[in-house]
C-alpha cells in the first residue's frame, strides 16, 4: 500500500539523518549572552578539534535567556554579561558559580551619511536614550563635535528588545553618569526604555542600526567591527576621550575590585586610558554537576578556555582576564563537583 511505503520512506529518512554523522558525540547545550557569542562560537569550533568527542551547542538568545534556561536546568551552562541578582541566585536548585571569561566593550554605533567619527559623553547618551535629545544636530552633540557637520535628522534610538547583559552593562553605565536616568529607568537586563525601537540580540541591534539611517545603538565592539559600522569615542571618568580598544578595556578591568564570587562591574572606570562602557561576561555553571560525564567534559573545556582560549580572545578584540584573576577563576573551576 502506498501509505505504507510512504511511512517506511519517512522512517528511512529519519534514520539517515540520525546516521549522518557516524561517530557518537556528546552534546553539551548552553544558551545566553549575544555579547560574547563571536568568541564563544570560535572557542567551540576550535575545541571540537581539540576534543572531537564532545560538541558544544550554544544558542545566543540574550543574557536574560541564559539566566532563565540555567535556572530551569534546560541547558548545561548559561552565559550572561549581567551578573545574576541575589534574588535569582536564591531561586537556583543548586549553587551557581559565575565564571568570568572575557571582557569587552559596549560601543555606541550609529548610521550617518559619510560615516563621520563622533565624540560623545555619558550625559549626552543618557539624554538621547531618555528621548530628551531628539535630533542629530542638537546643541549638546554639536558641542562635542565641533569639527563635524551633523544633519538635521531625527535620531532613531535602537535598544535591545530581549533580556540582555549588554543592556545591563549599558544601563549600569548610564545610571552612574546620569542621575536622571538612574531615577527614571535604572539598570537591569531588561528595562522600560523611554524611547526607541527594539532589536533582538546584539545581532538585531546592529542589523537595525545598519539598515536605518540616523540610527544609534549600543553593541559589543566586535559586532560593529565585523559589520564595518562606525562607533564613537567616549569621555571617560577622568575626562579623556577614549576609543574602545583591547587596551582601553584591559585598562578598565585592571581598576575593578573583584570579589570572591566574581560578580563585579567595571563601567565608568577610573584611569586615563579606561574605556567607560566595558563589562565582563560570565559562564554560569552549577557547582554540583548532575551528569558526571558531561560535567567532566565541561570542566575540561573551561580549563582550556581559560588558558588557550584567552589567547584567541585578543584576535576578536575581547580583553582576556588578567593573570592573577585567571588563577583565581581556575581555582574556582577546580571546586566544581562531578
Amino acid at each position, binding site marked *: 500500500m502506498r501509505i505504507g511505503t*510512504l511511512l517506511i520512506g*519517512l522512517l528511512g*529518512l*529519519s534514520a539517515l*539523518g540520525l546516521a549522518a*554523522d557516524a561517530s557518537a558525540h556528546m552534546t553539551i547545550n548552553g544558551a545566553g549572552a549575544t555579547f560574547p557569542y*563571536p568568541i564563544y562560537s570560535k572557542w567551540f569550533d576550535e575545541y571540537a578539534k581539540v576534543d572531537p568527542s564532545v560538541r558544544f551547542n550554544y544558542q545566543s538568545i540574550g543574557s536574560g535567556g541564559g539566566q532563565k534556561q540555567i535556572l*530551569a536546568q534546560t541547558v548545561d551552562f548559561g552565559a550572561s554579561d549581567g551578573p545574576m541578582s541575589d534574588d535569582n541566585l536564591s531561586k537556583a536548585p543548586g549553587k551557581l558559580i559565575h565564571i568570568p571569561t572575557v571582557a569587552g566593550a559596549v560601543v555606541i554605533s550609529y548610521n550617518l551619511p559619510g560615516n563621520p567619527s563622533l565624540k560623545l559623553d555619558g550625559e549626552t547618551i543618557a539624554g538621547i536614550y531618555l528621548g530628551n535629545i531628539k535630533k542629530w544636530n542638537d546643541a549638546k552633540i554639536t558641542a562635542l563635535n565641533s569639527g563635524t557637520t551633523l544633519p538635521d535628522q531625527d535620531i532613531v534610538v535602537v535598544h535591545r528588545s530581549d533580556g540582555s547583559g549588554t543592556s545591563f552593562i549599558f544601563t549600569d553605565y548610564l545610571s552612574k553618569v546620569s542621575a536622571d536616568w538612574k531615577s527614571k529607568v535604572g539598570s537591569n537586563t531588561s528595562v522600560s526604555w523611554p524611547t526607541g525601537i527594539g532589536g533582538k540580540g546584539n545581532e538585531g541591534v546592529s542589523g537595525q542600526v545598519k539598515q536605518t539611517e540616523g540610527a544609534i545603538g549600543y553593541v559589543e565592539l566586535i*559586532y560593529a567591527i565585523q559589520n564595518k559600522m562606525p562607533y564613537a569615542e567616549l569621555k571617560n571618568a577622568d575626562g579623556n576621550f577614549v576609543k574602545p580598544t583591547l587596551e582601553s578595556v584591559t585598562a578598565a578591568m585592571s581598576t575593578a575590585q573583584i570579589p570572591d564570587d566574581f560578580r563585579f562591574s567595571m563601567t565608568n572606570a577610573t584611569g586615563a586610558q579606561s574605556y567607560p562602557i566595558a563589562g565582563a561576561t560570565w559562564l554560569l555553571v552549577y557547582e554540583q554537576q548532575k551528569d558526571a560525564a558531561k560535567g567532566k567534559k565541561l570542566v575540561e573545556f573551561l580549563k582550556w578556555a581559560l588558558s588557550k582560549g584567552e589567547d584567541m580572545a585578543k584576535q576578536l578584540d575581547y580583553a582576556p582576564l588578567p593573570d592573577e584573576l585567571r588563577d583565581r577563576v581556575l581555582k574556582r573551576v577546580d571546586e566544581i563537583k562531578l
Partner: protein
Amino acid sequence: MKAHRHTRRKIISALASTLATVAALLVIAPLGLVFYHLLVSGIGSINWDFFTHLPKPVGEVGGGMVNAIVGSGELLALAALIGVPVGVLGGVYLAEYGDVRMNALLRFVADVLNGVPSIIWGVVVYGLIVLRFKSFSALAGGLALGLMMIPLIMRTTEEVLLLVPNGYREASLALGISRWKTIVHVVMKTASQGIITGILLAFARVAGETAPLLFTAFGNRFWNHNLLEPIAALPLQIFTYAISPYEDWHRQAWAGALVLVVMIFLINTVVRFLTRGRTVRVL
C-alpha cells in the same frame, strides 16, 4: 434620457470590471516580487558548500546549512509519526461511523483548531515536554508540528473518503467482508491517492513553520543524533540569520529561503499532479 442612463451604468460596470482586474494583479504582485528577490539574492549562494557544510563560527564567512536541511527533514518525519496515524484514522471515523451531530461537532472543533496560531502549539509543547524533561529537543519540535498536522489531515482524509461511492462499500459487505476490512482494503485503498495528497499538503504547510520551533527544537549549530537534544531546522536558521547584521548570513538566509520555498512548491506540484481534474481545497 434612457440611452444616457444606460451609458452611465455601462461605464460603471466597465470601471468595476477594470478595478477587479487590477485587484487580481495586485494580489499576485507580492508573489512575483518575493520570488524575484528569492531568485536574485538566493541563487548566487546556492553552492555545493551550502548543502554539505555546517555553519561557521559567528562572523566568519562561508559554511552551509546542511544540518538545518536534514534537521527539518527529521522534524517532519517525527511530526508525521504523530500526525498521520491520528489524522487519517480520525478522518476514517468521521467519514464511516458516528452520528451526524457528533461528527458535526468534531468537524467544527477540527476547523477551529486549524485556526489556532502556530506559536500557541509551541507554548503548549514547551509546558508539556520541555519543562518536564528540562531539555529542548527534536521530539518536542516534532510533537508541536505533529499536533498541528492532526486536524489538517483529519479533515482532508474525511473529505476524500466521503467521495468514495457507497456502492463500493455495499458490494464489499455483500460479499461478506467484515466492516473494518471493507474500510481499510476497499474504501481507503480507493481513496489512497487523496489521503496521500492530504498528508502532503499538511507537510507543505508545516515545513515552513518557525514559531512552534522557537522554544521546542531550539536550534543547533552542529549535527544532532539524539532526539532528546535540540536540533537545527531550516526556517529557524533563516530567521536567526535574517535578523543578524552579517552580510554573509543574510546571503545564506536568502539561499535557505530559496531551498525551503522550492521544497514546499515541489510538494504542492506533486499534489497538483496527483489531483489533476479534481478540486482540492489547499487551505
